């Protein structure tokens, strides 16, 4: 056993676990429920810096050969998720009380980090479970109506279904290739036997479910709407990133064989169109973002049609841009005791005249999500569709671009509310610490707008 590899290679995970355990101890020792935020932030920052450092130095190692190995790409992915978690945690101030939500957040991130290092389906499975289980509860944390519990239960049942699908697929792949290493998935992609193909498709379906691709999307709108703002931001930015980056690791160096292109491309395509169309008729902001995330899941899964070399770059850049935009948007939302009222799109009416900074950041987030240049969302979208077209699927890429066009309207509608509506008399309260969270996102967004090449060279 190589203890050094275990210590260094899993440093971000260790830090998260240490922070979580420390938080438990603090909670047990203190009489009143302590505030978990400072400790959680310190833990997140330490883990983020560790992951960043390991990614920058190009560390690679095999703490548990065949079960859990690390490489710079895995660290980069972990750094993305941990970095995004910091502003999300800032948003939680005022929404979630006590140390427990932060504990759940840390455990969930621990699972997310595991999935990015997974070398066997066992690690992948337990990582995904650890990623999801705390989120089921976070959805109903700070709940303000029965809707939250319903959403949590729905999410739990469908999340469990996704896990079962993943395991069934893994089991079939075990039968086809004799191993549970995730390399069996890549082998199964190329094998072409019915058993391997069925296994591959079940695993892909499980990822579609976790990533909320139509028709496996039913949980997302409810969960996004039922949860409080920081949790929705967490689901939109980090859970999605974790699932997609894990999928990149799963696909590995394998290309999608032509026979499987149609089933793998079709559902994301439908997802883009349906997500964008359904978002138009939403009146709740978070529900609209949920449908937007369904559409974005479609774009993200398109990345797998492209050449294997470009996948990590495309997905990583996309989840960075997408995550930053979501957190930026959520940070700009008004806070209010009546959550359902604050969540209505109409509550953004005249935002600019009251809180110009919030309106502008919200506008930037929406335009970037719509994929309009010069914001990073455009570069991300461009990268994905370029890869698809380079792989020779011109028709699919054009269809995808047209489907992405459908989304423009509802993003612009948010701008319409924020800038073009006349303000009503009442003031719109801002979230506590929202300024910090949005600045943490705005600075990277500005850098990515002007220097996207810097990041792309390093992914």
């Amino acid at each position, binding site marked *: 056993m190589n203890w050094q590899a275990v210590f260094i290679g899993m440093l971000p995970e260790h830090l998260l676990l240490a922070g979580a355990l420390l938080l438990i101890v603090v909670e047990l020792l203190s009489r009143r429920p302590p505030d978990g935020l400072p400790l959680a932030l310190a833990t997140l920052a330490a883990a983020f810096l560790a992951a960043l450092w390991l990614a920058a130095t190009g560390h690679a190692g095999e703490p548990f050969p065949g079960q859990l190995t690390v490489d710079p790409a895995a660290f980069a992915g972990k750094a993305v998720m941990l970095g995004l978690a910091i502003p999300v945690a800032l948003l939680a101030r005022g929404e979630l009380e006590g140390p427990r939500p932060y504990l759940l957040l840390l455990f969930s991130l621990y699972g997310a980090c595991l999935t990015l290092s997974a070398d066997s389906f066992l690690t992948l499975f337990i990582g995904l479970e650890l990623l999801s289980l705390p989120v089921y509860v976070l959805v109903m944390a700070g709940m303000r109506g*029965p809707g939250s519990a319903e959403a949590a239960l729905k999410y739990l049942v469908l999340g469990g*279904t996704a896990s079962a699908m993943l395991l069934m697929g893994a089991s079939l792949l075990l039968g086809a290739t004799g191993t549970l290493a995730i390399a069996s998935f890549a082998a199964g992609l190329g094998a072409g036997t019915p058993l391997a193909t069925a296994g591959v498709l079940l695993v892909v379906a499980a990822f579609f479910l976790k990533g909320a691709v139509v028709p496996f999307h039913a949980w997302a709108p409810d969960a996004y709407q039922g949860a409080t703002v920081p949790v929705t931001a967490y689901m939109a930015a980090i859970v999605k990133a974790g699932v997609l980056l894990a999928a990149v690791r799963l696909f590995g160096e394998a290309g999608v064989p032509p026979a499987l292109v149609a089933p793998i491309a079709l559902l994301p395509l439908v997802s883009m169109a349906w997500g964008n169309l359904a978002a138009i008729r939403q009146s709740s902001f978070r529900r609209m973002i949920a449908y937007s995330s369904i559409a974005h899941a479609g774009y993200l899964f398109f990345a797998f049609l492209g050449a294997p070399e470009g996948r990590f770059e495309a997905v990583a850049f996309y989840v960075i841009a997408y995550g930053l935009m979501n957190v930026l948007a959520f940070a700009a939302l008004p806070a209010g005791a009546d959550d359902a009222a604050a969540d209505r799109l109409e509550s953004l009416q005249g935002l600019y005249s009251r809180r110009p900074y919030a309106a502008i950041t919200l506008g930037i987030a929406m335009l970037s999500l719509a994929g309009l240049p010069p914001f990073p969302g455009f570069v991300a979208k461009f990268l994905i569709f370029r890869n698809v077209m380079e792989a020779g699927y011109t028709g699919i890429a054009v269809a995808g671009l047209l489907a992405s066009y459908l989304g423009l309207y509802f993003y612009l509608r948010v701008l319409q509310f924020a800038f073009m509506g006349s303000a009503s008399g009442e003031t719109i309260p801002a979230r506590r610490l929202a300024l910090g969270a949005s600045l943490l996102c705005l600075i990277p967004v500005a850098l990515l707008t002007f220097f996207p090449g810097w990041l792309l060279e390093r992914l």
Partner: protein
Amino acid sequence: MAEQQFLLAASAVLFSLGLLGVIIRRNALVMLMSMELMLNGVNLSLVTFASAAGSTEAAVLVFLVFVVAAAEIAIAIPIVLALARRRGTLDAGSWTELKG
């Protein structure tokens, strides 16, 4: 029909029945049970493949499935209780607040 294939077919049927239950049943608890049935189907297929290949890894995975199933239920039950207390029903079809 070989015994192994029979078992595998049974696992596929159990898995599909579980999925069917998740989709078509309205009672939240029955949905949870259906989810467990899916995992049982998975276990059956894992055990069958594992005993054919002599893979300890698969046996460990079966063990993990047990752990996770227990953990999921431990989380699901408080949620169900909260739901029943607030809504007075576990009927997924009557949750209209979140539709649309």
